[in-house]
């Protein structure tokens, strides 16, 4: 291959080649294998899925605005990936455990993570926002792919304890190139770990198209490692729910891991620090807006006799209130105490760190003393 063709590396989308239960137009497609996994999803349930997606989309937009206004240091928008995250997270049981990357805000929402908890890290006020055990969701991972191994180990432990709780590990398309993710596949298969690897193929790793990471649909990676791979329309919340439920069920039955590739798209920038115009076209963006996850659910609801306009408005209001809560919460996040910089480095007393802490406390005290003794600002 002529390396200068590398720009041409495509997005490996082929929408036809994946599990889809609801078309972008909102038609329900029959699927012999996956229908049974969502047989219980009536209009009400479908409405709840829509509600989740609409609210997280609104929260995400609000957080992006908060960053623009300087209330947050950074924000990685999930816009476009609502169905992939809501469909998979709503398939989870309360006692299942989640390991995620930095973008799974909708998953956090489903785990009960509150507004302040969600924004704390991005405001730079603390290095974690919630209690991982209360939310059954680990501290989000920034080192690409590392959490895939954590999910696998957690699942191995759960199995050894005889629990039928499953673990889900979220990562992106780019992450599949990291050794950690592939080693996670090896361990999970070797130990029949009850883990679901949920890969959101949003087509881009910052500026790199998925075709640069792989020429094969990512779900195909699974077979060679000895596990099933499911490729699903990541903008079809029903299909994602079905695929994730089937994979979780397999895990609970002790049959081992599954890799799910949710084909979706990051509509926004990689983070608020990114400018996607430098590496992708408006046409591509427009094409993906056509495949919107929310619109198709509304159409389906309408087809099933729901007053979708009314419902849409109702949910929009609710989302607006949630956004207002988010905005209110951000300023309520307390600034950390200077000396807390030393907290929790170790779980047990540590002579070296205690000495360093004392020294710094004395240093800070100098300024108070100085201030007290009338000098300004500095201790000098």
């Amino acid at each position, binding site marked *: 291959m002529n*390396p*200068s*063709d*590398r*720009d041409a590396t495509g997005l490996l989308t082929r929408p036809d080649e994946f599990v889809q239960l609801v078309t972008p137009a909102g038609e329900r497609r029959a699927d012999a294998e996956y229908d049974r996994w969502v047989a219980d999803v009536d209009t009400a349930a479908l409405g709840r899925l829509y509600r989740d997606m609409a609210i997280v989309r609104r929260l995400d937009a609000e957080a992006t605005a908060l960053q623009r206004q300087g209330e947050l*240091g*950074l924000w990685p928008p999930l816009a476009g990936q609502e169905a992939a995250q809501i469909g998979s997270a709503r398939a989870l049981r309360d006692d299942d455990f989640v390991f995620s990357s*930095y973008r799974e805000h909708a998953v956090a929402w489903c785990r009960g993570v509150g507004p302040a908890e969600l924004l704390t*890290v*991005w*405001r*730079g*006020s*603390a*290095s974690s926002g919630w209690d991982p055990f209360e939310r059954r969701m680990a501290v989000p991972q*920034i*080192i*690409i792919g590392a959490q895939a191994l954590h999910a696998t180990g957690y699942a191995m432990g759960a199995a050894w304890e005889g629990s039928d709780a499953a673990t889900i590990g979220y990562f992106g398309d*780019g*992450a599949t*190139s*990291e*050794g*950690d993710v592939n080693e996670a596949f090896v361990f999970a298969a070797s130990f029949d770990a009850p883990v679901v690897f949920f890969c959101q193929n949003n087509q881009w*790793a*910052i*500026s*790199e198209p998925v075709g*640069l*990471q792989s020429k094969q649909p990512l779900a195909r990676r699974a077979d060679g490692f000895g596990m099933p791979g499911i490729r699903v329309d990541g903008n079809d919340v029903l299909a994602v729910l079905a695929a994730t439920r089937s994979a979780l069920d397999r895990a609970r039955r002790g049959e081992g891991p599954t890799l799910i590739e949710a084909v979706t798209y990051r509509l926004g920038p990689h983070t608020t*620090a*990114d400018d996607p115009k*430098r*590496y992708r076209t408006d046409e591509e963006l427009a094409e993906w807006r056509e495949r919107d996850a929310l619109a198709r659910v509304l159409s389906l609801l309408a087809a099933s006799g729901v007053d979708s306009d009314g419902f849409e408005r109702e949910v929009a209001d609710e989302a607006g209130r949630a956004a207002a809560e988010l905005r209110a919460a951000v300023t309520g996040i307390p*600034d*950390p105490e*200077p*000396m*807390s*910089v*030393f907290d929790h*480095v170790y779980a047990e007393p540590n002579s*070296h*760190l205690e000495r*360093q802490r004392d*020294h*710094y406390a*004395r*240093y800070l*005290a*100098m300024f108070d*003393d*100085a201030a*007290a*003794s009338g000098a300004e600002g*500095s*201790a*000098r």
Partner: protein
Amino acid sequence: MTTMTFGKALNAGLRRALATDDKVVLMGEDIGTLGGVFRITDGLKAEFGANRVVDTPLSEAGILGTAVGLAYRGFRPVVEIQFDGFIYPAFDQIVAQVAKLHYRSRGMVRMPITIRVPFAGGIGAAEHHSESPEAYFTHTAGLRVVACSNPADAYVMIQQAIASDDPVLFFEPKRRYHVKGEVDETASLADAKPLGVASVVASGTDVTLVTYGGLVQTARDAAVAAAEDGISIEVIDLRSLAPIDYATVEASVRRTGRLVVTHEAGQQGGVGAELAASVTERCFEFLEAAPVRVTGHDIPYPPAKLERHHLPDLDRILDGVDRVMGRPNSLSGVEA
């Protein structure tokens, strides 16, 4: 002389290296089409093509491991690690392969690989984006480790690193990328100060203040502030962290009798430990006081809102100067 930012100087240096030697190839995540998240390689892919400026899959071990193979083939790979905190997945390839292959092959295989690392903090970034991992590499035989502190050095040193037949860890203080300075793009590398030589950036008589990278400017500011207090500080920009130019440091300490070292990395086993130990070995009878280290705390890098309580700054450096001068300081106590 042209005025340009630190980042632009690196870009110009890389461009010149690419133009000079067609075995030079740039590799990294997002360095091609995007020009790097800091735009250091901006425009270079368009100018030199996709097999000279290579967007790689998302895998640091993969980048370094393939760079080793390219070096075997006679290339001079220049690798960008997107942020300091992402170099660890490549640690094995760097420490067990890049650093050892020349020795292991009895000099038959050269590893002229340059590993560019935007490093250290001060930009309020998220976790893993503000690390100072340099000491891991100064402790690794077979590697050269350098850190640049200003546009002029950045422009020259990146070219020297690429031209070196030894592997070079090249640390760039990301918080200084936007600082402007004078760069002489016409100067020949031959006349340039060698990569291994330190710079005395401010001369003084009372205290030798040694640092590198992003803190060099802070150290200069400290020297100015101390002067107002009647303390004369000599500031040395190490530039090379392995090997360290002890000739320059020793000459200074023999005159001042006092050494303060400052860096953002933690104290335990940091570059300051090596410097303090070596200077004590070499200048014991000249020392008026024990060398003082002003460093980041021995903690994981804290959240953005706490980083100013982690990083050495003007006041903390001056407190260290007070310590080495035996004046009132945070440890001896302050006279109100």
